[in-house]
């Protein structure tokens, strides 16, 4: 009983799996086309030739190999037209389209140039105003792409679906209308739904013409950033204060020196204090009295200030004790 149930489950799982991985060839769409290719997409030989784009609208891989491309569907009913159509060769890995991807075929009537060069040219006299994609059985029409006569002369716009592979959209009245037309941008091998919106700068210019909004936001962000640092430093100070409150072992805490410092600061000028500090520094660091240079507190004759020397305004690099 269990074996039978297991077998049934396995069968259905296999069935669904097969369904999931089945290639939906009908999901292929002829998506965009350009005939009068003057300065647009070039083929691998550096030529500007008419091109058509196929879009895999499915969410699984589809191989377009062995399908047919043509601009003359005569013989479609009984499959007798296959000898005149371009059969996409088998064996080229590039014919396997991954989900939602694109491939471009050159309509240059030069099939010997490679897999993606078909055997017809829409520029030829008397050629039809459509291109058809037919399945490998030669009888099933996968997609047909009709185009207006103006496409033959258009150099500025290609023709295709505004949204990749979507043939009709609802208008304001709920009626389905064609989603096909001349596109603003050539997009061979990529999506047609190119949104060329405003640049950031244009958007700012439009929404904030006087710059007040940007100034307010920016100043706020600058303040927030620096307030965050301020809070961090306050935390540092608090931590440090805790340490400073505790006198080191054996030390006697006294603030008797502070009033003296105040008196000194008020009695002497800056130059005198600088000289005293320098003398103390030399004394503490044990430097010899007889220096090779003259130390003076006189104002230099040139227009010069030690503060104009950047290196003097910063402390020496610390050394590890």
């Amino acid at each position, binding site marked *: 009983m269990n074996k039978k149930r297991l077998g049934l489950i396995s069968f259905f799982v296999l069935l669904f799996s097969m369904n999931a991985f089945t290639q939906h060839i009908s999901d292929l769409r002829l998506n965009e086309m350009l005939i009068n290719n003057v300065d647009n997409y070039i083929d691998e030989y550096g030529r500007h030739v008419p091109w058509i784009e196929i879009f895999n609208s499915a969410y699984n891989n589809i191989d377009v190999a062995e399908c047919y491309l043509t601009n003359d569907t005569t013989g479609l009913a009984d499959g007798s037209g296959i000898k005149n159509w371009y059969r996409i060769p088998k064996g080229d890995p590039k014919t396997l389209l991954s989900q939602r991807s694109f491939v471009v075929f050159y309509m240059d009537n030069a099939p010997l140039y490679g897999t993606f060069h078909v055997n017809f040219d829409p520029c030829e006299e008397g050629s039809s105003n459509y291109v058809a994609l037919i399945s490998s059985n030669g009888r099933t029409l996968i997609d047909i792409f009709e185009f207006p006569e103006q496409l033959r002369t258009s150099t500025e716009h290609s023709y295709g679906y505004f949204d990749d592979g979507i043939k009709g959209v609802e208008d304001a009245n709920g009626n389905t209308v064609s989603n096909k037309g001349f596109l603003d941008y050539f997009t061979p091998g990529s999506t047609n739904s190119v949104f060329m919106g405003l640049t*950031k*700068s244009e958007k*700012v*210019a439009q929404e*904030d*013409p*006087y*710059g*007040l909004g*940007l*100034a307010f*936001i*920016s*100043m706020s*962000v*600058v*303040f*927030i*950033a*620096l*307030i*965050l*640092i*301020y809070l*961090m*430093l*306050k935390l*540092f*100070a608090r931590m*440090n204060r805790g*340490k*400073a409150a505790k006198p080191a072992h054996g030390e006697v805490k006294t603030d008797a020196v502070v009033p003296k410092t105040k008196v000194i*600061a*008020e009695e*002497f*000028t*800056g130059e005198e204090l600088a000289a005293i500090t320098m003398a103390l520094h030399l004394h503490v660091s044990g430097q010899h009295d007889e220096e090779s240079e003259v130390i003076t507190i006189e104002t230099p004759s*040139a*227009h*010069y*200030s030690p*503060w*104009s020397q*950047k*290196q003097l*305004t*910063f*402390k020496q*690099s*610390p*050394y*590890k004790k």
Partner: protein
Amino acid sequence: MNFIQFFTEGITQFFTYTGFANASWGNLVMIVIGLAFIAMAIIKDYEPLLLIPIGFGIILGNIPFVDGLQIGVYEDGSVLNYLYFGVLKGVYPPLIFLGIGAMTDFSALISNPKLILIGAAAQFGIFGAYIIALLLDFTPQEAGAIGIIGGADGPTAIFLSSKLAPSMMGAIAISAYSYMALVPVIQPPIMRLLTTSKERVIKMRPPRVVTHREKVLFPLLCILLTAFLVPSGLPLLGMLFFGNLLKESSVTKRLANTASGPMIDVVTILIGLTVGCSTQASTFLKVESLMIFGLGAASFVLATAAGVSFVKIFNLFLKEGNKINPLIGNAGVSAVPDSARVSQVEGLKYNKTNYLLMHAMGPNVAGVIGSAVAAGILLSFLY
């Protein structure tokens, strides 16, 4: 006869290649400006490390020549063009910030954290100039690049203008560095105008001792706080704090010395020279450049006024004894250390024992961080 003809033709042809044959009035004007920069640096000692390379670069960039010889800064493949790449792609400014970070001691800021807010207030100069530039019909991108002059930070100005308005970069950089050199001339009248004699003699508490641990933690926490908030400022902020960590960690002394010494010197030479070269008369002598200079001056004035005014307002909320001398408000612009030096000089004028330099260094280095953050914000909105 043939030889004489060949000789005269050769001489005539050679003459067409010389600078004399190709010179324009614009070139001569720019060469005079370059010489003035060099004179200012040597005679007046105004930012010599910057004005001499820039001044010489202006001369180099305005030597007239025939196009196509691959010698001009704008000609593909020329040596100057290769060096200019570092400016154009914003490579040099972050490297300079690395050196600045390795040179800067943030102790003044760490010991008195409230000073950092002055650095934020002074950034109003940037956005004030941005608003004025928009009113003068500059695009938002151009206005942003011009406004950053008010940050008084040459590398930041170059970095931002290379992204937002590359065609204006020469004028913006020259303007920024010129005004930085003129900080001692521009700022004092504004400081005096906005302060009372009583405010000018306010004595500030001496800064507390900052521990080694605080100094090490500062760059690490700052980069995390600022870069997460404004990731677009990462090239500048990242390098600034990285350089500072090299210095403060005390175990990478060699790296810190290289970053703050030979490396920043090399990059300063390259950036100064190539920015100077980029001011070819044909691209620089325009009404637009004059407007940039005017707006640059306005942004400096606004930044200084904003910094000083902020301190005055801030003082209303501070207790007696904790008040800040408004003469350090000007140091919120990041012209390190010139604007702090101006605070010191002005402070000593009114009280010979009032040394404001180390207090002013707090907002000064905060200004460096603030202008880098402001540049990041402008970049994220406009680029």
